């Protein structure tokens, strides 16, 4: 496994292409609805694959230990993130809390890219990690709201209370949770045999579709960066670079404690290190409308996502392999 291999993998290069095109203000775009369709495909593919793998092995204690650890990570990381932001940056309480929520939650595309990188490197990983990804999406949002609401004006809390049905649906039934968990179950029910007829669509073209999708992600990240970086100070940008490392280190420790094999450990590190840019922003606009989206969208999509894709993923894989070897 060579870090340069990952850096020059087509997936990463197409991401870089999109990023540079956007930074140079290219007018090109991948239609949003097309990219959204591809995103659903990618989630179905990893869900199904994970489900098929799960159908072959019994769930043991380790699995539940990881589920528990993931929940704790998602609930807990926002506290660290919040503290770091409040101490180092001038972000308001609300903005810091909202941003912290993003870093407790996960980026499913980073996870997909990591799965692909593991496959290229030939390192096996377990199917149930897909469920771990789904589990980690939501708890961080609760921490973020709690952090923002402490001592907040009553009407803000009233607002959240009034919208809580909608908020719950947004965070518990959003596309990635529905598709990941759904496809995982369907894959487990279908098993190896049932999956066979699907593999021509969900396995063979996977990496190619990921390339196309990554081109779009690069365009999005670049556009976010170009519009938003002026608003960000140095401290938040630095945060977008060191926070993933903090998350990864904590996940590595927990993973070692539980005794995870290298592939699974690397994926837990990736989840911990990645930051949400779909589920959490949506929840924040609903529940904390006075928070500034250009802060957290720019950070998670414009800074942390590219960092993880280009440097983080190969690094986490290398560290996980070392720790286990």
């Amino acid at each position, binding site marked *: 496994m060579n870090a340069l291999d990952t850096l020059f993998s087509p997936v990463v290069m197409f991401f870089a292409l999109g990023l540079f095109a956007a930074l140079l203000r290219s007018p090109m*775009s991948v*239609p*949003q609805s097309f990219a959204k369709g591809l995103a659903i495909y990618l989630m179905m593919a990893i869900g199904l694959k994970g489900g098929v793998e799960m159908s072959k092995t019994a769930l043991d204690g380790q699995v539940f230990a990881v589920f528990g650890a993931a929940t704790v990570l998602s609930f807990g990381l926002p506290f660290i993130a919040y503290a770091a932001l409040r101490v180092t940056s001038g972000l308001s309480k609300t903005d810091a809390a909202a941003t912290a929520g993003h870093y407790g939650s996960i980026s499913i595309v980073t996870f997909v890219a990591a799965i692909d990188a593991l496959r290229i490197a030939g390192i096996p990983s377990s199917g149930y990690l897909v469920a771990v990804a789904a589990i980690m999406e939501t708890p961080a949002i609760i921490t973020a709201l709690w952090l923002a609401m402490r001592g907040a004006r009553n*009407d*803000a809390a009233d*607002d959240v209370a*009034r*919208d809580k049905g*909608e908020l719950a649906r947004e965070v518990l039934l959003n596309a990635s949770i529905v598709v990941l968990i759904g496809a995982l179950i369907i894959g487990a029910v279908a098993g190896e045999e049932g999956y066979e007829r699907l593999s021509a669509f969900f396995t063979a073209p996977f990496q190619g579709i990921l390339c196309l999708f990554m081109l779009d992600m690069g365009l*999005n990240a670049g*556009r*976010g960066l170009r*519009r938003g970086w002026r*608003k960000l100070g140095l401290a938040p940008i630095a945060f977008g670079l060191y926070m993933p490392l903090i998350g990864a280190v904590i996940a590595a420790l927990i993973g070692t404690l539980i005794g995870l094999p290298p592939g699974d450990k690397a994926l837990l590190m990736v989840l911990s290190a990645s930051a949400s*840019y*779909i*589920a*959490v*922003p*949506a929840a*924040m*606009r*609903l529940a904390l*409308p*006075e928070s500034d*989206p*250009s802060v957290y*969208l720019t950070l998670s*999509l414009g800074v942390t996502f590219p960092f993880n894709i280009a440097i983080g993923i190969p690094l986490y894989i290398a560290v996980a392999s070392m720790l286990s070897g």
Partner: protein
Amino acid sequence: MPFSHDDNKKLRLELIIESPALRRAEDLLRDAGATGWTVVPAMSGFGGQTRWSRGTDLSEATDMVVLICIGDEDVLKPALQTMLKLLDRRIGIVNISDVRVLRPGLF
């Protein structure tokens, strides 16, 4: 003249708002007794020193929409009071104009 009668005078409310707050605004209008409204997607905009455009925020949470509601003054005026409260913490541009309508019975 099918619309020169006094009955034909209505208000046209136009609300430009972030999509996550749309449902709240709709509930507010319904509770105030509005008989209907129509929502149109915005594709880009400018405000508060930043340009925004649909398709750059993957969460779609910062997408703006334009709600158009034709209604009676008696219905829309009280609705505006409540709307002011909703918009207190939120992005939202409201404008009202005088219009005449066909088929005033619909409103």
